[in-house]
C-alpha cells in the first residue's frame, strides 16, 4: 500500500443524504471501496437522510438509474465492519433496523464466523464515535 509508512488513522465517512436524489451516496461508496485497500481504521456513519441509503428493496428501474444498494452488503468482504446508523434518525423517519439491509462480515479471528457490521447507535454514542476520528469525510 502506498500510504505513509505504516501510519494508521481513524477515517470516518459520514453519509447524510438520501440515495438517487443526488450522487453523493454513490460517490461516497466509491471512496470507501478504494479506502478499504489502505490499511486504515475505517468507520461509516449514516445519519439524517443518509439512513435511506441502507434500505432494503431499492428498485430503480422506473427512474432509469443504476441500483447500487447491493454494494453495501459487499462491504464486509472489504473488511469494513464498523457501520454506525443513528437510532434517532431512523425513528424520526418511521424506520427501524428491520427496514435496513443486514450487513455482515466474516471474522477471520473467530473461524470466519459471520457477524454483524451494522450497529444502530444512539445520538450521544455516535457523537462520541465522531469525536474520536482523525480524518472525517462528509457526503
Amino acid at each position, binding site marked *: 500500500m502506498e500510504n505513509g509508512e505504516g501510519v494508521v488513522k481513524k477515517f470516518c465517512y459520514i453519509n447524510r443524504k438520501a440515495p*438517487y436524489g443526488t450522487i453523493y451516496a454513490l460517490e461516497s461508496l466509491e471512496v470507501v471501496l478504494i479506502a478499504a485497500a489502505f490499511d486504515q481504521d475505517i468507520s461509516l456513519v449514516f445519519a439524517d437522510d443518509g439512513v435511506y441509503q441502507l434500505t432494503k428493496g431499492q428498485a430503480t428501474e422506473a*427512474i*432509469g*438509474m*443504476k441500483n447500487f444498494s447491493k454494494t453495501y452488503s459487499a462491504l464486509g468482504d472489504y473488511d469494513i465492519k464498523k457501520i454506525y446508523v443513528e437510532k434517532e434518525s431512523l425513528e424520526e423517519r418511521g424506520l427501524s433496523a428491520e427496514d435496513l439491509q443486514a450487513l455482515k462480515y466474516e471474522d477471520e479471528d473467530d473461524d470466519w464466523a459471520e457477524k454483524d457490521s451494522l450497529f444502530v447507535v444512539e445520538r450521544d454514542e455516535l457523537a462520541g464515535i465522531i469525536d474520536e476520528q482523525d480524518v472525517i469525510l462528509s457526503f
Partner: protein
Amino acid sequence: MKFGIVVNEGPYTHQSSDSALQFVKAALQKGHEIFRVFFYHDGVNNGTSLGVPPQDDRNLTLEWSGLAEKHGLDLVVCVAAAQRRGILDEDEMGRHGKSANNLAPGFRISGLGQLIESGIQSDRLVTFGD
C-alpha cells in the same frame, strides 16, 4: 399540449436531468409536443460531448441526443451559463480562442431569450433542478 422544459443541474450529480428525461419521454409517448428543453445553470453540463460514464450506468448526454434525433427536440444550452462552465461549440471555441469544443450532437448554444420564449410559447413550463 406544448411543453417547455428547463433543466438546471448537471448530469449525475442531481437527479434533475434524469427526472426531466423521464418526464419528456412520458409526455412524448402521450402525444404531447416538447417545444424546447432549455439547459440553465449547471444544466449546461448535460451538453458535454466528453462524458464517459461507467459502462453499466446510463449515459444522460447520449439519451438527450438520441431523443433529440428521434423526436426533433430543440435542446438549447444557455450561452452565458455555458461559457462560465466550459461548454463550447465550434463557433464559441473560435470566438474565445480555445483549443477544443465539447458540445454534444443535438444540442445548440443560444441566449436566455430562448428560455423566455419557451415560457411564452409553451402551454406549460416545467423546471427540474436542485
